[in-house]
C-alpha cells in the first residue's frame, strides 16, 4: 500500500513539489471561494479568472514563460477587472450576470489571441491548462507568499469582513466603510487565482476556489470550521490527479477538476447540510 500510494512522492521530487504546490494553494483558495459564494459572487470570480489570461498573455509576450512577469501581468489585469466589475454592478442591475459573461469571453479571446500571435500553441496550452508537473522553486516561493499574504490579511480583516458578508447594513449603520474590505478581499481573490493558474491553468483555476467551497457548504454551516476543513478537499483531489497521472498516464488538471466534481455530486446526495438523501429520509419520516 505504502509503495503504491506514497512511494512516488518520496522517489520523485517533481511529484512531491507538485503536491506541495497543491497543499499551499489549498490553504486559502477554498476559503476565498466560500466567501465568494456567501457574497453571491461566484460568477465574478469566474470573470476575474478569465480576465487574468490577457494579462498573463501580455507578460508572456514581453518575457516568455517567466513566472514573475506573467504573474505581474495577471495581477494588473485582475485588479482592473475588480474596478470594472464594480462599475458594472453599479450601473447595471438585472443584466449583471450577462455583462460579466460577455466580459470574460472577451478576455479569454483576447488572451488567446495575444499568446497565439507571440508564440506557439504549445505554450498556450500550458497556460490554459497549467503545468503542475513542472512547478519549480520560483513558483513554490510565489505560492507560499500568496498563501502567507492571504492568511495574514484575512486574519486582520476577519471581523469587519465577515460582518460585511453576512450583514452589510450593520457596517453602514455603524459608519464603517465595508467597501474597503471588499476591495482587499477581491485582491486576495486575484492573487489566489494567479496561484491557481500556476498549478492548473487559467481555464480551471476558479475551480479550486468555488468547487471545494460548494462541497463543504453541503456538509457544514459553520464558516470557520468550513475554512479549516476545506483544504483537505483540494488536497485529496490534487492527490488523485497526481496519482492518476503517475499510474495511468492521464493529464493532471482535468482529473483534479473531475475529482472535485465527483466529490460535489456525492455531497449533493449525502451532504449533511442539505443533501438530497437526508431530505428524502426526513420526508419518509414525516409520512410514517
Amino acid at each position, binding site marked *: 500500500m505504502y509503495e503504491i500510494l506514497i512511494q*512516488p512522492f518520496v*522517489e*520523485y*521530487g*517533481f*511529484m512531491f513539489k*507538485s503536491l506541495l504546490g497543491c497543499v499551499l494553494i489549498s490553504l486559502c483558495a477554498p476559503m476565498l471561494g466560500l466567501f465568494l459564494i456567501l457574497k453571491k459572487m461566484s460568477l465574478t470570480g469566474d470573470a476575474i479568472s478569465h480576465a487574468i489570461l490577457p494579462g498573463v498573455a501580455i507578460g508572456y509576450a514581453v518575457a*516568455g*514563460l517567466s513566472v514573475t512577469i506573467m504573474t505581474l501581468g495577471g495581477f494588473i489585469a485582475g485588479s482592473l477587472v475588480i474596478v470594472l466589475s464594480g462599475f458594472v454592478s453599479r450601473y447595471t442591475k438585472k443584466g449583471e450576470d450577462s455583462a460579466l459573461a460577455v466580459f470574460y469571453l472577451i478576455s479569454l479571446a483576447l488572451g488567446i489571441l495575444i499568446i497565439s500571435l507571440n*508564440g*506557439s*500553441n*504549445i*505554450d498556450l*496550452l*500550458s497556460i490554459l*491548462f497549467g*503545468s503542475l*508537473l*513542472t512547478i*519549480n522553486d520560483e513558483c513554490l516561493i510565489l505560492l507560499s507568499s500568496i498563501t502567507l499574504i492571504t492568511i495574514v490579511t484575512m486574519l486582520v480583516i476577519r471581523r469587519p469582513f465577515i460582518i460585511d458578508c453576512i450583514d452589510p447594513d450593520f457596517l453602514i449603520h455603524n459608519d464603517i466603510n465595508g467597501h474597503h474590505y471588499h476591495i482587499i478581499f477581491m485582491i486576495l481573490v486575484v492573487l489566489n487565482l494567479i496561484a491557481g493558474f500556476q498549478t492548473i491553468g487559467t481555464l480551471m483555476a476558479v475551480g479550486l476556489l468555488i468547487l471545494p467551497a460548494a462541497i463543504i457548504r453541503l456538509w457544514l454551516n459553520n464558516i470557520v470550521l468550513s475554512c479549516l476543513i476545506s483544504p483537505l478537499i483540494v488536497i485529496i483531489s490534487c492527490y488523485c490527479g*497526481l496519482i492518476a*497521472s*503517475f*499510474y*495511468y*498516464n*492521464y*493529464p*493532471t488538471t482535468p482529473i483534479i477538476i473531475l475529482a472535485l466534481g465527483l466529490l460535489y455530486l456525492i455531497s449533493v446526495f449525502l451532504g449533511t447540510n442539505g443533501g438530497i438523501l437526508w431530505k428524502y429520509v426526513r420526508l419518509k419520516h414525516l409520512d410514517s
Partner: protein
Amino acid sequence: MEIRSIKTPGFIKSLFIALLTLSVSFESKAEDINIVTTNTILADITSEVTGKHAVIYSLVGYDEEVHAFNPKPSDLKKLKEADIIIANGKNLEGWLSRIDDKNKIVEASKGIKSIKKDGYEDPHGWNSPYNANIYIDNIAYAACAKIPAYCNEFKDNANKYKQTFNELTIKYKQLYDALPQENKKAITAHDAFGYLARDFEITFIPIKGVNEETEISAQILAQIIKQIRESGIKVIFIENISNTHFAEQLTKETSATIGGELISDSLSKKNSVDTYYKMVDYNLKTVYEAFSSAK
C-alpha cells in the same frame, strides 16, 4: 548602346529590340518566381540552390515551433500566389492536405530512408547531415522543372552545396566514431533527432514525442527520470523551439546536466544559427562537446 551603333534596316532593328525586351521581360519574370516553404530550414536550402532567381517566403519563422503550426488566411494567400510550395512531408505539415493547389507542393524529404515511430513516419529528416543531399536534390529538381533556363546554375549550386555537407559529415563522423559508445547518450526536449541518432550511433531519449505532444504525464516524467538514473545518462539538451521547464526538472532529480541548446526544427536568430549548414554544424558540435566532456 550596341543597338545604336549597328547600322541595320529599321525593321530588323525593331525586331532586335523586340527580342531584347522579350528576353529582358522573361528574365525579370524568372527572377520573380515565388517559392513558399513551410519552415526556415527549407527556405535556406531553397535560397542556396536558387540563388537570386527566386523570392522565398517561410511560413513558420525563426525560433518558432513547427508542429503546432496552422496557416492563417495571410499564409493561405501566400500559398495561392506561390509558384512552388516546398514542404518537408512525412506528416510534418498535416494541414497541407486541406489546401487547393496540391500540384504545386514539393515534398523535400522524398527518398529518405524513413524511421517509423508508433506507426508514423518521423519527419525530422533534416537533422541528419546524411539526408542533406536528398533535400538539396529534391529542391534543385523542383526549381529546374519550374525554370529550366537556369537549371544548370541550380545544379551547380546544389553540387557545391552538397560538397560542403559531405565534408562536414565526414569530419564529424570520424569524431563521433572515436567517442566511447557509453558516452553517446542523452535526453532531448522532443523526439527531433532520430535520424541523427541512427546515422551517428547515438542514443537520444526524448522528453516529448515526435510531434511535441502537449501534456506530459507524471508517468512519462517518472520513466525518464528512472532511465537517466539507471542508464547513467549525463547530458540533457534543450531546444530553441520549446520551453525548458521539463529539462530543469530533470536536472534537479538526477545527476544529469544541461549540455546545451540544440536547434531542432527552425533556424535560430537568437543563437545566430541562421542557415541550415550552420545549424547542422552547431548541433553536431554541441552534442560532440557535451559527450566528450561527460564523465
